[in-house]
């Protein structure tokens, strides 16, 4: 089955002529006003989406725990020793709309920093979301009578499917597609899509590309830029080196490599200047807590600094990606998962504080994503690969304090259980992405550019409502 947008993209690329051969973003030749108005906004307008990717497949079962007594009992019966005792959840039990009568959820105790945000209606919870090609029932899944996403339950592929609708090898993600629509409105458009983690398909568009920045900022290549020259000795060598690593090449691998280096040098100067003297945010997002490095804090701090520098770079729409690794909790779930959630909860709350501190709360929406949810049943000290899971959406524009989507049965063998408590998603990633995209400014007609399977879902379900 061909995703509708791959055809649309091909047609689109034909219209704009070929893609820039390698690397350096060619100016967006098209007048985007004819295609959309994502970028047609007034000067004060700024919006950013921040994706926190939880690599490894977050154990949603212990992230958002059924709290009503009967539901918790069913959850505990399925999880065995993995269950979080109900008495440990009292402080993080949530009271909010969107759930069937009698149902209740509590955040994992380590996510306590997120409860005030939920209560302040800045944070919403999207239940059981995952990749789908069309609405799918359990019977349809078992009969394989409808198309299903490729390579379910496989880490690398489901990371890619979440980010791009395609399995490993995909070259366009929906963050990048959002970037495509935003390029024209941005001054220094290279900074439309920024990854503070490694390379990921999420931020790759047809034209927009992921600019990768270190958590400590852009890294200068001193050998090619030092005023004193290479080894403080030779400006001739410095200049020769710069030419070698930036010149165009006929060999394609060499050419693509030099394109990356060219961008690195070009970006480092302007970005370095824009970041200089800006707010630091170390109070909200410390690098180290209790002698342990907090990778997610460092990444989100860089995102906050970049958002603070938006005006100097002439940016109106940005998509960011950060990540936290280690969620593949086949074992040690009771020690490893709480440690990860501790990092996540503190980083998300700290980031919201940082963004609020610069008055950008309503302009920035943060959301989580992951390879997949996990099994509810236990393998003794961990859980296995699943499908749907619960996710968090946070920001001043979020209609928070509420649950969205359908609450799955709290125990095993519910109507969405495809085996061992793996959840058949009741909400698709395409609906999730489209809801974020609409807020970002993408008009209805262009949503399939971002969410290729959106048309397979009925019109009234395409907006999940959390923004």
């Amino acid at each position, binding site marked *: 089955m061909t995703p509708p947008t791959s055809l649309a993209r091909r047609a689109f690329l034909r219209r704009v002529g070929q893609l820039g051969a390698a690397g350096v973003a060619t100016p967006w030749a098209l007048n985007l006003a004819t295609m959309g108005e994502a970028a047609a906004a007034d000067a004060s307008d700024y919006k950013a989406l921040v994706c926190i990717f939880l690599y*490894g497949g977050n154990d949603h079962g212990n992230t958002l725990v059924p709290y009503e007594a009967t539901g918790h009992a069913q959850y505990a019966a399925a999880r065995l020793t993995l269950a979080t005792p109900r008495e440990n959840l009292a402080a993080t039990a949530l009271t909010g709309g969107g759930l069937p009568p009698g149902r209740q959820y509590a955040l994992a105790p380590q996510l306590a920093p997120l409860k005030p945000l939920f209560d302040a209606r800045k944070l919403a919870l999207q239940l059981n979301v995952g990749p789908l090609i069309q609405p799918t029932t359990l019977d349809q899944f078992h009969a394989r009578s409808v198309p299903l996403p490729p390579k379910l339950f496989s880490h690398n592929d489901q990371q890619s499917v979440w980010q791009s609708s395609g399995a490993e090898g995909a*070259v366009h993600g929906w963050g990048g597609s959002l970037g495509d629509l935003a390029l024209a409105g941005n001054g220094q458009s290279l900074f439309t899509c920024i990854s503070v983690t490694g390379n990921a*398909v999420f931020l790759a568009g047809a034209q927009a590309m992921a600019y*990768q920045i270190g958590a400590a900022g852009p890294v200068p290549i001193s050998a090619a830029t030092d005023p004193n020259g290479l080894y403080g000795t030779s400006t001739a060598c410095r200049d020769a080196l710069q030419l070698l690593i930036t010149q165009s090449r006929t060999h394609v*691998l060499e050419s*693509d490599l030099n394109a*990356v280096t060219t961008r690195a040098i070009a970006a480092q100067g302007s970005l370095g200047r824009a970041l200089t003297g800006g707010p630091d945010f170390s109070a909200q997002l410390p690098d180290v807590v209790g002698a342990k490095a907090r990778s997610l804090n460092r990444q989100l701090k860089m995102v906050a600094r970049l958002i603070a520098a938006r005006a100097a770079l002439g940016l109106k729409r940005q998509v960011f990606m950060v990540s936290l690794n280690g969620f593949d909790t086949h074992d040690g779930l009771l020690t490893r998962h709480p440690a990860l959630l501790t990092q996540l909860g503190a980083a998300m709350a700290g980031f919201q504080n940082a963004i609020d501190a610069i008055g950008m709360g309503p302009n920035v929406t943060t959301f989580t994503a992951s390879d997949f949810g996990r099994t509810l049943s236990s393998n003794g000290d961990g859980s296995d690969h699943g499908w749907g899971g619960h996710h968090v959406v946070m920001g001043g524009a979020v209609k928070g304090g509420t649950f969205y989507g359908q609450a799955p049965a709290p125990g095993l063998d519910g109507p969405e259980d495809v085996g061992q408590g793996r959840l058949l998603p009741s909400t698709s990633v395409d609906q999730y992405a489209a809801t974020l995209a609409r807020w970002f400014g993408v008009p209805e007609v262009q949503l399939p550019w971002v969410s290729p399977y959106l048309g397979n879902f009925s019109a009234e379900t395409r907006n999940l409502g959390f923004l």
Partner: protein
Amino acid sequence: MSIIEEKASRPTAPRPEPERVDGPNAATPGAVPLVALSALASAVLVACGGGSGETDSRLGAQAVGSRSAGAGTGTAVPPLSAAEAARFLQQAQFSSSAAEIEQVRAIGMAPWLAQQMAAPLGPTGWQWLMDQGYNREDIIFDSQYSDFMAWNQLITAPDAVRKRVALAWSEILVVSASGLDGESPSFAMAAYWDVLNTHAFGNFRQLLEAITLNPAMGAYLNTRGNQKEDLVTGRQPDENYAREVMQLFTIGLYRLHPDGSIQRDGSGRPMETYGPSDVSNLARVFTGYDLDETGHARATYPVAFRNPMTLRERLHSRLEMEFLGARIAANTPGAEALRLALDTLFNHPNVGPFIGHQLIQRLVTSAPSPQYVARVAAAFADNGAGVRGDLRAVTAAVLLDPEARQGTAHQAPTWGKLREPVVRCVQWARTFGAVSSDGGWRMHDWSDPSTALGQSPLRSPSVFNFFRPGYVPPNTALALGGQTAPEFQITNETSVAGYINFMENAIAFGIYGSSTSKLWVPSYDAELALSGDPPALLARLNLLLAAGALSQATLDLIAQAIASIYSTGANTDWGSQARVWSAILMVMACPEYLVQK
């Protein structure tokens, strides 16, 4: 985990190294004699019709002898050039010294390779850790000695071809020191590394079994401590190893043709190799395993992390296991179930193309032709003596294939691969004789792309390796052609800067592991001798580092740039040294070097 409590009171005296069952002197099943190997290389070339007589005969004397046509017509065969020999060496190992280049030219590539593969296993990583005295209680939870060990092995081991191929295997059958916790992680990593080296030129079936029962792998993918299902509580076996051994280590997700292309059904959909039920069933096979503590002494002799994991039959699933069309009857003893399961995986027709394709990517080119994959897969299926899975034959097929050996003039402008940062660094160290200033080899985890190499041996971020074989770099010319380039997955604006900065310091001042310990080149004697003759210096660097791949324009550019540095010609002169350092850095930063062709 139990070992922590149980072993605290054991005596801690070091023990002599016991005879290892899987040691270097054990017979290697399926290994073929040198002559057969050369004949195989020749047969491969003849069969595919891809090699010219010229290329063919350069593989070695035996190959010439086996081709009467070439010999009979008396066609003059130009000798293997130094650049061709260097190019082969840089694919087969890390570096190419002048002496090695001459060796290869003298005896031919195939015989040289056969000699290297037949050479005994060098000193083990395990023994190195013991010799360095890292078997201590105070550092029992520290994994950094795995880094010291790995860098030391890659840079100093005499069996460089084995080490290069083992590094490739460490990126296919991945265990990462970053994913191990608990006791003695450095020793566990060393034992894992030693398994890869021991079996690198053995048989894949034995490699697969050894890696399945390796304690580091057991911890990484959860076979260690994995228990059978509990029908009362609903507890299920851990599926991690069962899934990844199929997806990553043996067969992959889709059925493959022998040339590595995906088989499709009547509707054009890729045909999957397995489904969730295969995973759940195979997971039962890997239940009941845990550490074998025979001979173990906490910290001082942590051999439980080297002994193959042992089966606890009472924790092993007794259920029937049905997967990949095979059926293991209920109540089959665990060892027999494992044998049947690994045989099933080993004999799956996907293994040859699936593994062969990845070995080609690791050593030679990112996007090999289907014919190249098919030839390597054929060598996997049959080494010429009727043996399946002979890794000497497979490695030889990868390195001696006509596509690997074709000259740059015959290559498409997309052929080749980006050299990995680890391999670049090891090449520098080996080429110029870098040494540890204090013998401590404090070479750390250099994975940070901002401040270091962006990659470090045995430090993959996950079982999916640093980069995926199917990775297509977005927003590139490669993406327009849908071409894979795995190493680009760790190439970005940060990493390209980090690498050049790291090497700038390494080349001139060394790599500091602490304020008092560094890996450095004490003196670039041969290069300094040429510092007064920049074109000659560049010719040397071009051969040793880039196998002659640098264009004349690049050589001229660098030579002219360094000639502008004032130098008295004395070796100790700052100007002479700056010329040499600058030339090496420019070569190692330029794209013609970075893309190995």
